[in-house]
């Protein structure tokens, strides 16, 4: 930590450094791009993974962004705060799209929610909302009157142009127009209602015969404005939305927010609750990967696999239902522990699951993995190199399929993961097959974790006493967990009241969807399905 501090003070003497569990540096916008370049390229710093960009509106104190950076080499974290220049009508920050590829999408998101314009970003369109949406919803002075933005059955405006703000040599900011598709392109619209997009995702695809030339991704068909709703809710109320983002990772996501609030409020939870949470996380990881394998095989045309994998998933859902009382939206983890104690049958049921799981995984491999058609469809299709995976922030099984050991459970262990014995599954190939196999092997590892814990659940309280009205101290926190689909982060800023001032979710699926254009280049239309399926994004998680 201290050497990063020294290094930064030599690089940029005017930077304001603020200690915390993640060090935060405040940088003026004029120096930001150069500073970012040295953060990324300096051999001693090498912050090559941009976790998220949190847009912020501090009312009269101006607007800005907090960038969360991680170094995959040294496993260090850093937050950089950049205040926007210009007035509220046109706040400006320099873009860093040329350093981290994923910044293109993250900056569009900030622009969509806060209206902050990123200079030089090649694509400054709205990301989630219509082109004609009035106002920037996450600004504190946003007018939510439904008559301003009414529900309309008129088709949304469609354009092939995007705005670019370019800084000229003499420091002036000019607005230009840039074409996304050329007039001669044959553009096929795939989605939002399409069987293979796993929800309401939309790709505008320029194709040449069966070969893909370019994909332009459209999001927001299930954008529910969760981050805005959070600001109106008390802390315990915020929890249940975690179930409805990535509905397969409901437990890990809950775990993340609970840990964050507990850390902020200084609540210690019992070991029993920790173990139960981890057990539930790993069970949902198996269930999620089961569904992935099933739907992926269905996308490739092998429908029958879905029914075999769903059999195991139903068994896991039964276990969860007995304890949590629901099949999908569990709302089980709560501040201070978990909602209910485990069902008396829990241990027995989990053992029954662990008994059948290896045979099932073997069966899946037998039916599908070795099949010559499946191998031809998946091997060397959609290759994502390690460098690209980091630059595009593609985490989770997708990143590990590209040889990037990015498992938060290993590199920044939380809860009781540091005591557990399991391997991080990493494969080097980076193609669709690798992503598929990583998930297959992760099921085995999750089963291993469960087997270690299920017989040693300690006695104790499942939930500690928490004040009825929960107020957090003024401050900001950032926490990451390993969701079923990758690194899931939450940024929380509190102004000392019962409601969060800003609660930003950094979903793992947004980078996975953003990278589709990059890795489908030159592939066939059928490969788009293979690649999209192997990335396994959940659209409500992307759109929030």
């Amino acid at each position, binding site marked *: 930590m201290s050497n990063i501090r020294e290094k930064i003070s030599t690089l940029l003497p005017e930077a304001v450094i603020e200690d915390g569990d993640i060090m935060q540096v405040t940088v003026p916008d004029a120096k930001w791009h150069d500073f970012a370049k040295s953060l990324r390229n300096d051999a001693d710093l090498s912050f090559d993974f941009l976790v998220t960009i949190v847009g912020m509106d501090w009312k009269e104190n101006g607007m800005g962004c907090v960038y969360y950076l991680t170094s995959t080499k040294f496993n260090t974290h850093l937050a950089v705060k950049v205040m926007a220049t210009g007035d509220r009508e046109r706040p400006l920050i320099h873009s860093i799209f040329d350093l981290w590829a994923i910044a293109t999408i993250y900056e569009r998101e900030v622009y969509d929610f806060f209206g902050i314009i990123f200079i030089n970003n090649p694509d400054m369109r709205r990301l989630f909302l219509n082109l004609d949406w009035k106002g920037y919803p996450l600004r504190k002075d946003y007018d939510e009157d439904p008559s301003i933005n009414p529900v309309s059955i008129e088709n949304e405006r469609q354009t092939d142009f995007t705005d670019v703000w370019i800084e000229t040599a003499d420091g002036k900011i000019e607005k230009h127009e840039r074409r996304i598709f050329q007039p001669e392109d044959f553009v096929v619209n795939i989605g939002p209602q399409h069987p293979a997009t796993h929800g309401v995702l939309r790709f505008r695809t320029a194709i040449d015969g069966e070969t893909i030339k370019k994909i332009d991704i459209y999001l927001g068909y299930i954008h529910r404005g969760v981050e805005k709703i959070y600001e109106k809710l008390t802390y315990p109320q915020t929890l249940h939305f975690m179930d409805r983002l990535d509905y397969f990772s409901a437990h890990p996501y809950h775990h993340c927010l609970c840990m964050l609030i507990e850390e902020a409020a200084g609540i210690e939870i019992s070991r029993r609750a920790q173990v139960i949470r981890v057990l539930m996380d790993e069970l949902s990881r198996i269930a999620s990967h089961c569904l992935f394998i099933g739907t992926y095989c269905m996308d490739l045309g092998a429908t*029958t696999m879905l029914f075999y994998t769903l059999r195991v998933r139903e068994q896991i859902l039964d276990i969860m239902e007995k304890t949590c009382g629901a099949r999908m939206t569990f709302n089980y983890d709560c501040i201070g522990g978990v909602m209910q104690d485990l069902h008396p049958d829990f241990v027995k049921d989990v053992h029954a699951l662990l008994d059948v799981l290896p045979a099932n995984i073997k069966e899946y491999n037998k039916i599908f993995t070795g099949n010559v058609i499946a191998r031809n469809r998946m091997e060397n299709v959609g290759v994502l190199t390690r460098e690209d995976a980091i630059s595009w922030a593609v985490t989770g099984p997708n990143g590990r399929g590209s040889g990037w050991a990015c498992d938060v459970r290993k590199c920044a262990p939380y809860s009781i993961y540091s005591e557990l014995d399991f391997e991080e599954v990493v494969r080097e190939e980076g193609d669709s097959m690798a992503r598929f196999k990583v998930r297959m092997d992760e099921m085995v590892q999750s089963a291993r974790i469960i087997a270690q814990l299920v017989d040693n659940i300690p006695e104790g309280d499942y939930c500690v006493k928490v004040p009825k009205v929960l107020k957090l101290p003024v401050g900001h926190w950032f926490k990451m967990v390993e969701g079923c689909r990758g690194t899931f982060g939450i940024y929380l800023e509190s102004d000392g009241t019962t409601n969060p001032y800003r609660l930003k979710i950094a979903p793992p699926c947004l980078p996975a969807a953003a990278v589709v254009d990059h890795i489908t280049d030159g592939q066939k239309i059928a490969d788009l399905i293979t690649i999209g399926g192997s990335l396994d994004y959940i659209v409500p998680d992307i759109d929030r």
Partner: protein
Amino acid sequence: MQDLSVGTAWLHSFLTDYIPEWAAVTLECLLIGVGLMLLYAVLALFYILFERKVCAYFQCRLGPNRVGPWGLMQSIADMFKILIKELISLNHIDKFLFALAPYLVIIASMLAFAVLPWGNGLQIIDFNVGIFFLLAVSSIGVLGILLAGWSSNNKFTLIGALRSGAQMVSYELSMGLCVVTMVVMAGTMSVGGIVEAQNHLWFIFSGHIPAIIAFVIFMIAGTAETNRGPFDLPEAESELTAGYHTEYSGIHFGFFYLAEYLNLFIVSGVAALLFFGGWMPLHIPGLDAFNHVMDYIPSFVWFIGKAIALSFIIIWFKWTFPRLRIDQLLTLEWKYLLPINLFNLVLMVIVVTFGLYL
């Protein structure tokens, strides 16, 4: 073996006793036409239910079982529904071609029915190039699919149709070559002649190695010809929504749906004809008692039974394998099946010339 042509000959002579010959033939044609249509509908309904049940059992499910006993009435309910479903009229399409396409597809499969050997003496028309005629008419279907995709004025249907064109034209080659291989074996192109040639033993046994190779290739090419999984690219649901028939609704869609199942029957029927003796019962040289018992099973039961058993294999493919990609599909045909097929044809000629068959 009871010869059903006795019945048909009696009907003909009965009619010619009372009405002139031309009228009798016209009347017979009408009767056959009506019978064929009925058979067509019944077979299609049966096949739809059969596939749904089979796939359900593959997937540890029960399949339709609420409508009628064991769900037997399910496809009849579906038929009533689809008959009175709205036919959506679209703007900006080629209305004539759009309406023509489903009929082309269904007529192609109906024509092929004419030469199938339903039973001993139960063949509608038996002429000297029967099998050739069958190949010719079954390729009209691809025209219908191309027209459907083109006239819908929709990018998905267009891609589906072009895929289908490439696929069907390629795999027709393999199918044709398989047929030629077996024609070499039979020494005739007449469907009746091919069946008769298998009187003592089915070709799959008597032709041994080349016949088995031809059979395997025929099944692969046949699956591709009928646009079924793993070759269902023209209507790949996860890629092109419903492929070339995305824009069709109501009974027009029903025609495509029916034709798909009927083509399945035709392909398996032709496979039964070429390799498993058509309506010919299982005869093993030397076992006269056994052969005699087999003769008691009616010939049309043999034919339909064989065809259904073979279509079961094709359905099995669909619910097991993932789908191929278009370039892999064409590679399979042009780089593997076609050379093997040509080699196999030479092998068959050698086998026949030197009398190496059983």
